[in-house]
């Protein structure tokens, strides 16, 4: 893992969020964009999400290493992945934001809601991943 690439990638994400807010006044929060891609907001949100996927392709095209996320090899692994997806869906919808909406944008807006959300999901995320490691 390259520290420079982590920092550079983070800065690109920050630049994206700042540009979207400065020009269109919109929050670059991925869960919010996915869940509310309806009505008059639908077109720009679908364009953003399609472009998000294209951006991943472009990064690999210019030499970034391809992320690797195969289907889990065991039924238990598949069940865990589906439960994780459900939990992230319920959770980000209830808390109205994820790593981007609360983390990248909300903290920059000095939102107490976002600070509380980030501390909670970072803490629980670390506890969960660590517990899973030691359970194996």
């Amino acid at each position, binding site marked *: 893992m390259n520290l420079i690439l982590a920092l550079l990638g983070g800065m690109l994400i920050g630049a*994206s969020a700042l540009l979207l807010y400065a020009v269109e*006044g919109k929050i670059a929060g991925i869960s919010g964009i996915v869940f509310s891609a309806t009505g008059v907001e639908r077109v720009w949100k679908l364009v953003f*999400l399609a472009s*998000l*996927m294209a951006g991943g392709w472009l990064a690999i095209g210019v030499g970034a290493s391809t992320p690797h996320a195969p289907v889990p090899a065991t039924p238990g692994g598949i069940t865990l992945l589906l*439960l994780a997806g459900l939990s992230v869906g319920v959770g980000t919808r*209830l808390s109205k934001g994820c790593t981007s909406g609360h983390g990248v944008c909300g903290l920059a807006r000095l939102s107490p809601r976002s600070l509380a959300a980030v501390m909670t999901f970072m803490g629980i995320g670390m506890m969960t991943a660590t517990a899973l490691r030691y359970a194996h």
Partner: protein
Amino acid sequence: MNRLVTPLLCGALFGAGLVISGMADPSIVLGFLTLAPGWNPALALVMGGALVITVPGFFWLRRRARPFVAEQFVMPPTRPVDHVLILGAALFGLGWGLAGFCPGPAIVSLGLGQGAALLFVPAFLIGGKIADFVEPLLRHRSA
């Protein structure tokens, strides 16, 4: 049509950032979230790098009455910190720690045809629908 240029550009920047940073690879994310020997703190720099841009940038934007093109800034509420927020963030953290996917990287991985995302993203969408059903019940109980 011109109004789609910024979302187009921002989506691509965001997606590229997720892949370049390592955030789109669940094994790297779990390496950051797992506090054990071999802990890899690099991903802290992803949010750090983003905040280096957004904190001063959003502060600077506060002096403006409106965005450069749109009529107004979207202003999601910054309070209250209530039980629905904390429960939601906790469930998000639980799922994130189990699979190493948060929503942005899951969408990018779906675009790359990664198998895990083909399972995770539909479950994520169903989860959102469940939340729409559950949220009024959670709020009613406390009212």
